[in-house]
């Protein structure tokens, strides 16, 4: 009797899993009226958020730099603060324009910084905050600009990674690094000291990826780009299968060349996630099991499309048998989230769907 009672629940669950019904159009009309009433709140939020975000970034930025910078900077900070309240009254588009200006302002400013150790903590803070601002305002995929003036390059990577990981939680993790191969030689007081540099500068960046990952390489800004791969674009996407070094020669408008080198180090941390499995006890693909090599820490979570957690483990040898509370889960697509750490201690994540075939 009790068993049959349970079956009733299953029966209803199956039937209602994909049940939908189109609501009366009146519902939307009423909803829209309610939303319009509350729209001013939304608007003020969206106008306010990017401005506050930018102001915060600027303040944090200059706070870190004040010890090593001249007195010119504090006045700039106050300018930003003045800008912020003004922008609230301007339309959202204009707020965006101000933001663009700010990002442009930041780049030359960071060129002046010569001491690299101080850059490291700064960038870390920079990236997540910026992200908040962009996520709230518009979908400009901003490149995380990292400085590489023949600086210890390993740290550069670890900074750019958390930012990009968060934006693209897919298996293909993009990394964008823009080494700024410019250094200020203030011996000759000229308006553009960057262009006077006679020696081709070499900057080096190391990037570690897992097999199968694609990396986007971005050359420093210039006039003409010549990649060792034969490409001529500023950014190229590469998917090496072994540790490879890429070089790009960048010429500026005066014909001065600089060379940037990208060392792509291949890690043995490939992860294989099956796209489907069939838990019908026929001996083949009865478990949803993730395989991988060179993985130190591992965690997987599997959700139904309702967001219900159906399976979770930290043990890679454990797979899901397609059962939910002792019953067979319905045939459907399930969403997995995987977080793992490779042998070098780097964190990766992957997300996707797996289909349960009965």
């Amino acid at each position: 009797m009790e068993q049959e009672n349970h079956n009733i629940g299953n029966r209803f669950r199956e039937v209602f899993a994909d049940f939908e019904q189109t609501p009366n159009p009146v519902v939307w009309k009423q909803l829209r009226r309610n939303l319009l009433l509350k729209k001013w709140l939304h608007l003020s939020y969206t106008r306010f958020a990017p401005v506050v975000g930018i102001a915060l970034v600027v303040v944090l930025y200059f706070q870190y730099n004040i010890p090593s910078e001249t007195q010119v900077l504090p006045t700039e900070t106050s300018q930003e603060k003045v800008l912020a309240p003004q922008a609230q009254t301007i339309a959202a588009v204009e707020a965006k324009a101000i933001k663009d200006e700010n990002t442009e302002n930041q780049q030359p400013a960071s060129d002046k910084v010569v001491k690299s150790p101080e850059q490291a903590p700064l960038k870390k803070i920079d990236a997540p905050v910026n992200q908040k601002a962009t996520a709230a305002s518009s979908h400009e995929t901003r490149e995380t600009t990292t400085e590489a003036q023949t600086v210890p390059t390993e740290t550069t990577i670890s900074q750019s990674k958390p930012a990009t990981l968060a934006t693209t939680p897919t298996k293909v993790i993009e990394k964008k690094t823009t080494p700024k191969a410019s250094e200020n030689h203030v011996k000759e007081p000229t308006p553009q000291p960057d262009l006077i540099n006679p020696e081709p500068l070499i900057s080096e960046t190391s990037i570690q990826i897992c097999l199968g990952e694609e990396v986007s390489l971005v050359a420093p800004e210039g006039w003409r780009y010549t990649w060792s791969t034969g490409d001529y674009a500023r950014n190229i996407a590469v998917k090496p299968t072994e540790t490879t070094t890429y070089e790009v020669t960048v010429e500026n408008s005066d014909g001065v060349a600089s060379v940037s080198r990208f060392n792509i180090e291949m890690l043995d941390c490939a992860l294989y996630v099956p796209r489907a499995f069939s838990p019908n006890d026929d001996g083949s693909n009865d478990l949803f099991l993730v395989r991988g090599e060179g993985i130190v820490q591992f965690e997987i979570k599997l959700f139904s499309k309702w967001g219900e957690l159906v399976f979770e483990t930290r043990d890679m040898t454990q797979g899901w048998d397609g059962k939910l509370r002792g019953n067979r889960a319905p045939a459907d697509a399930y969403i997995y989230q995987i977080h793992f750490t490779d042998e070098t201690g780097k964190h990766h994540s992957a997300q996707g769907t797996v289909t349960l075939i009965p």
Partner: protein
Amino acid sequence: MIHDSEIIRGCLKGSLKMQKVLYERFAPKMLGVCLRYARDKEEAEDMLQEGFIKVFMKLGEFRGDGSFEGWIRRIMVNTAINYYLRLRKHFYQQDIKEIEEITEDSQIAFDQLHVKDLLRLVQSLPVGYRTVFNLYEIEGYQHKEIAEIMSISVSTSKTQLLHARRLLQKRLGAYNLQIDRK
């Protein structure tokens, strides 16, 4: 097909167009959820509207670490439960009387039952049974969680589920049981 994240961004900017896209994408499914918690379509549409307002207001809180649809669904379920809690004061007593009459209802063959029939069956349950049944069987909540959100005891939750199942079973009839046994 516009990606969910794009819709969310648009809505956060206050774009009415994107709000409509979001609504149109999820409203039919969510009405399917609300209908199970409601007595009729009118009540369900009330819940739906209330739920969607919450979705739009709380959109900034969606962290994107789970399924967006799942997140909306949880809001809908919570809205439905609040609806129930508001009603409880007025209808709880009535529900208990109702049970006595229902138990003698005619049997319905399963093969004649479609989603809408099953829905009517669920909707005909007393509101307390209905909510617990939905939460436990369809949404997959545990008794402990149900007890918390409905401010009832765990044993009440269990009893209500049992009653709900028995009632449904009685109404589904013997024929249905044979199918289930297979």
